[in-house]
Each structure stands twice: as structure tokens, then as C-alpha cells.
């Protein structure tokens, strides 16, 4: 698995996905050209570029309080969101005759972040040179990255599961609902565990006071 990280072929293929998403996602699903470790590294890179953009984009275009930026919490949040998206999409598409495996979904979403990584970093760099009048270009770069990333994500899910566009949109919508349900269940579970824990802890305390 880890070997794949150092395979030039896999990395090249990730970038080939950006230029030929339809073909590449098909090959990822059916010929095993993709790599989950590469996708995860891309997610981490995305999180870092996101934090760097918030932190060090020029004051002219950046309204974020630097004290609010914490790359580590943002990394954890992005990874959790990634996991959540993959799992909920998988659980929905399993029921809707999707052909993609969890692995393929993870790769589809991870690779779709490449345009965002590239554009965020270019925008951050570019922002160092702009004044307010040229700030529109900065926003265009950012928007392009996000738009292309989202389109790639949609294409990825579509091709990997062998869906039509309409069905993809429906599953994406259902995926969001699934995400909310998972979050709800997890919160419920955490709360219950907490109550059980505090119950045993109070028994322990009682015993300690009486002993």
C-alpha cells in the first residue's frame, strides 16, 4: 500500500485524471489505476493549502482573523469530513446499484481535490501581488478551482458507479442526508457513552466514599 505513494506512475495518473476525468475514472474503477494512499495524501495537501490560504493570503483579499486559523484542527476536520463523505456515499450507492467500491469513492473524491489544491496555492501566491482593483482575478482563480473540483467530484461519482447524471445528483442529495444521519447517530452514541461512563463513575465515587 505505502509503496504506491512513491510510485511515479500513480501520481502521474492522478494528474491525468484532472485532464481526462471521464476516461481516468473509468480506468480507476476497472483497471486499478488509482491509489487510496495518494488520495489521502491529496486530502491532506488540500487541508494544508486551505489553511495556508486562510493564513497567508494578502491582507487585501483576506478577511480572516489569523488567530482563528489552526492548521491542525482544520486538518482533522477535513479528514473527518472526507471519511464521512466517503462512507455515506458508499452506504447510499450500495443500495442504489452503484458499482463503485469504497476504495473507488475515496479515490474519486481525493483526486477531485487536485484543482482546488493547485488553485488555492496559486491564488495565495498571486494575492501577494494584487491590489483591491485586481482582487477580482484572485477570486476568479479560487472560484475556478472550486468549480472544477466539484465538477470532477460529480464526474468521479458518476463514472465510478456507472450512473446517469440525474441519478448521480439524486445520490449526492441522499449522501448529504446520510451524512446528517451519521452525525446524528454518532452524537447520540457519544452522549449515551458519556451517560454510561458517568453512571459507573458515580458508583465508583460512592464506593470510594463509603469504603
Amino acid at each position, binding site marked *: 500500500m505505502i509503496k504506491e505513494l512513491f510510485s511515479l506512475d500513480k501520481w502521474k495518473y492522478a494528474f491525468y485524471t484532472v485532464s481526462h476525468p471521464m476516461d481516468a475514472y473509468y480506468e480507476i474503477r476497472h483497471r486499478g489505476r488509482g491509489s487510496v494512499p495518494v488520495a489521502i495524501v491529496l486530502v491532506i495537501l488540500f487541508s494544508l493549502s486551505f489553511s495556508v490560504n486562510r493564513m497567508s493570503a494578502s*491582507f*487585501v483579499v483576506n478577511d480572516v482573523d489569523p488567530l482563528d486559523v489552526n492548521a491542525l484542527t482544520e486538518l482533522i476536520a477535513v479528514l473527518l469530513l472526507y471519511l464521512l463523505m466517503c462512507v455515506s456515499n458508499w452506504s447510499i450507492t450500495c443500495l442504489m446499484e452503484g458499482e463503485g467500491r469504497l476504495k473507488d469513492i475515496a479515490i474519486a473524491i481525493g483526486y477531485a481535490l487536485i484543482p482546488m489544491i493547485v488553485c488555492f496555492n496559486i491564488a495565495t501566491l498571486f494575492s501577494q*501581488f494584487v*491590489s*483591491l*482593483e485586481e482582487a477580482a482575478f484572485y477570486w476568479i482563480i479560487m472560484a475556478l478551482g472550486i468549480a472544477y473540483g466539484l465538477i470532477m467530484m460529480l464526474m468521479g461519482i458518476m463514472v465510478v458507479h456507472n450512473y446517469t447524471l440525474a441519478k448521480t445528483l439524486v445520490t449526492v442529495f441522499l449522501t448529504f442526508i446520510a451524512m446528517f444521519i451519521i452525525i446524528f447517530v454518532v452524537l447520540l452514541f457519544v452522549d449515551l457513552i458519556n451517560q454510561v461512563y458517568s453512571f459507573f463513575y458515580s458508583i465508583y465515587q460512592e464506593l470510594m466514599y463509603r469504603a
Partner: protein
Amino acid sequence: MRRQKWFVTLAASLAAAVAALGTCAGAKELPYDTYTYDYRENVMLTPAAYVPNGRITGQTAGTTDFKEPQDLCVAPDGLVYVADTGNNRIVVLDEDMSQTVRIIDSFERDGEQDSFNAPYGVCVSENEQLYVADSNNKRVVVLTPEGEFVKIIDNPQSEVLEDDFDFVPLKVTVDYADRVYVIARNAFEGILVFENTGDFTGYFGTIDVKITLWEKFWRRLASKEERSKQQLYIPTEFTGIDIDSDGFVYASNLDSDGLQGIRRLNPRGEDVIQKGENQNLGGDLWGSVYGTYSGPSEFTDVVYRGKGIYSLLDRKRGRIFTYDKEGNLLYVFGGLGSQEGTFNTPVAIETVEDQIIVLDAYHGAVLKFAATEYGSLIDKAVGLRYDGDEKQAIGAWEQVLKLNENNELANSGIGKAYLTAGDNAQAMKYLKLGMNRKYYSIAWQRYRNELLTQSIGPVMTVVVAVIAVFVLLAQVRKRKGRGKRKEGLL
């Protein structure tokens, strides 16, 4: 050994911290905090801008105690008029409010003795006439400052008024042309304006009712009967009124959204106030969510202090908010309480020279506040900028920065000065500290051009040299290639 050393350092720094705290507490001793909101809308504590400077009651001024006084007015000649509502009289105090000059509790009208009934508002015009909002007598009485009867304004007649309109004047002010502006009870349509003849001319500065889409939706669903039981959507009331030297009316109002508690009305009654960076003129941006002191500030009076600066009195938390002409919040101070320098029921605010005076209805006292160095420096700098004298303002801003290096207005002001002086790098530094994005961008643009023009010579030289080398190399290669080809041919 090493641990011991570390411990000693810790103890020393702790001791230093405690000592520092001690001195801070010693220097402070004020019953309230002074603060402002920074660019990110965080509370930024600042040095005190105004400090309590005495308390005047009826007794200290040499008369009987005030009973629920409701209004204050400073006449052009410096005398202070207090509407002593509960005692049905107007008390005139001298400039420093230590002595009573005279008491007006009755006047002779058409040969008969007449008196006030709960005089609520008082105002002295530029033409030295005393206007008293005689609330329970439903009239505005105009007297000379000595108390001689001039005229009475009452019973406004107009189509715009409802038939059963009950004229109960609460606050009154007069402009340079002797037009009278009256805030009356239950007159939600705005401020009543009277000509100098006493004729009612109409409402002024009506605040539009805001109904959200959601409320409209619910009203559409409700039946007629339900609708009649629902709360009426009425405009917010005006609470206090003042007039500036250009004849523009400053009127405070209650805003349940906490967005705009003050209006500056031009002669046509349109709101022309300038809002600052965050578009807020509603006092506190933050507050507790529950309890008596929760919710937006409730401005009860306004005073125009000259040079575009005006102060608003919040009756909910007893704070005084001061804004400049551009709508920047300069400083907030004051509070409710029972200590000296705090209020119970603040009702009116005025300014005497560089002092701010506030009337507390419950205690029947006038509280004086004097500007500290910090406060007066800010007032001075803002005033100089209002006059267009940016250069002079820099000196004052620099001194402000010495007292509070986080003051964004000061940083921004200094940054602008550097910008006009042509020092773009310094301008960028200060404008960034002042969170002034627009001017920072201008400074950066100029700085960038500067860098470009400076480096264009060397950069172009290098570029030309590189191109020349490439061309040469290409030619050399060409010749070699030709040679090779020849060799090949041979």
C-alpha cells in the same frame, strides 16, 4: 539546582505580575470600563476617556432636591437649564452648576398667573428663548430666559393628525430659524415640526416600518380576527433630539435590532447619517443573552458635541457611546450602579465645554464627566480631521498611540499621513494595523510601482543579457550543425 533556578524565575515573574496588577488597580478605580469595538467586533478595553468629575443635586446647587428631572439644556450663554419635572419647575444653574441662578415655576400670561404641569423637556434657542415642553398641559411654552411669557404652541391642527390625537410633548429643540421640533408621546410617525408662528407643518424624519418576509407570511395565514389581536407594526419611537450648527437634527431612537439608534435628519427629514465600517450605529454589538441587561442598547438621548462628534446615552446599561462623523465608534464609558460616577436612570445628556453632563432622574442628580488625556486627544484628532487638517491630526494620533497602541483609528490616521507623505512602506504597516483595507491597497499599489521602477533597470539588463546569450548560443549551434552536416556530407 536547575529546577530551583527555574522556580526562582517563576516566583520573580509572578511577583512582578502581581505588582503590575496592583498598580493597574490603583490607577483605575473607576466604576466602569472604557472600551470600543475593534475591526473584528471584539471588545477592546482602552484607557479611560472620561472620568467622573463631580455630582450636582438640587441641594448642592442651593435649592431643594430635584424630583424626577427629565431634561437638561445648555444655553448659548453657558447657563444650564434643568427640567425639574416632578417639582413642576425649571431650574437655571450657572456655568459650573454650583449655584442656582433662578427658578422658573410660573409665568404671567394675559395678566393671569400660569404654571407648568410636569415640564418634561427644555431647550434654549440660539435667539435666547426658552422652550418648555409642558407635557401634562399639552403645550410648549415659550418664555424669555428670565421667565417672561412670549407665546404658547399647542393643539396642532392638520389632516395628517388623527382626530383624537393627544398632544403630549416630551422633548423639544429649536433650530436657527426658530422652527420647533417636538417629540410627542405616541406620535410614532416622527417628530412634529412647528413654524416660528406656532403652526404645525408636519411630521419629520418618519422611520419606516420593517416587516420581514416571515412576518408577512404569518400575517397572510392569520384570519382577520387573529390579525386584530396581533401586535401592531408601528415605527420605533424617537427618544432624544439635538441640533447641530448646520441645522441638521440628531434624533435618537429605540431599535430592537440594535443596528441604528441614531438618525441625522436633513431639512427635508431624510436620514443622512454616515455609518462606519461595520454599518452599525446601535451601541453595543455584544451583550448577555438573558437577564435584565440583555438586548441591544436603548438610546434615550443624544448630544451633538461639535466637529461631527456626537454622544449617545444608553439607558439599558447606562453607557455613553461616542461616534465621529464617519460613524466610527470612538469610545464607550459609563455604567449603571450606585457608586459615584454611575447612574440609576439616565435620561439626558449634554455637553458643557469639554465636559459631558448626564442627568439621572432617579437620584435627581447631574453627573459631570471630564475628559482624560486619552479622551481629549481622540476628540482633538477627530476634530482636526473634521476640519481637514490631517497633518495636525497626526501629532494627536501619535500621542493616542502612545496611550493605546491598538487604536485602529489612530493607526489608520497615521497610515494615511504616511501615504500622503509618500512613505508607502510605513503607510502599509500602519494601515494594516488600522485594518484599513482600502487605503492599504492604495499604499501597496504605489509601493509596488516604486519597486518596479527601481528594479526595472537591473531586471531588464539581465533579461536582455539572457536573450543575447541564447541568440549567440543558437547561432553557434547552427554553425556547428552546418559544420557537422558538411562533415556528414563528406
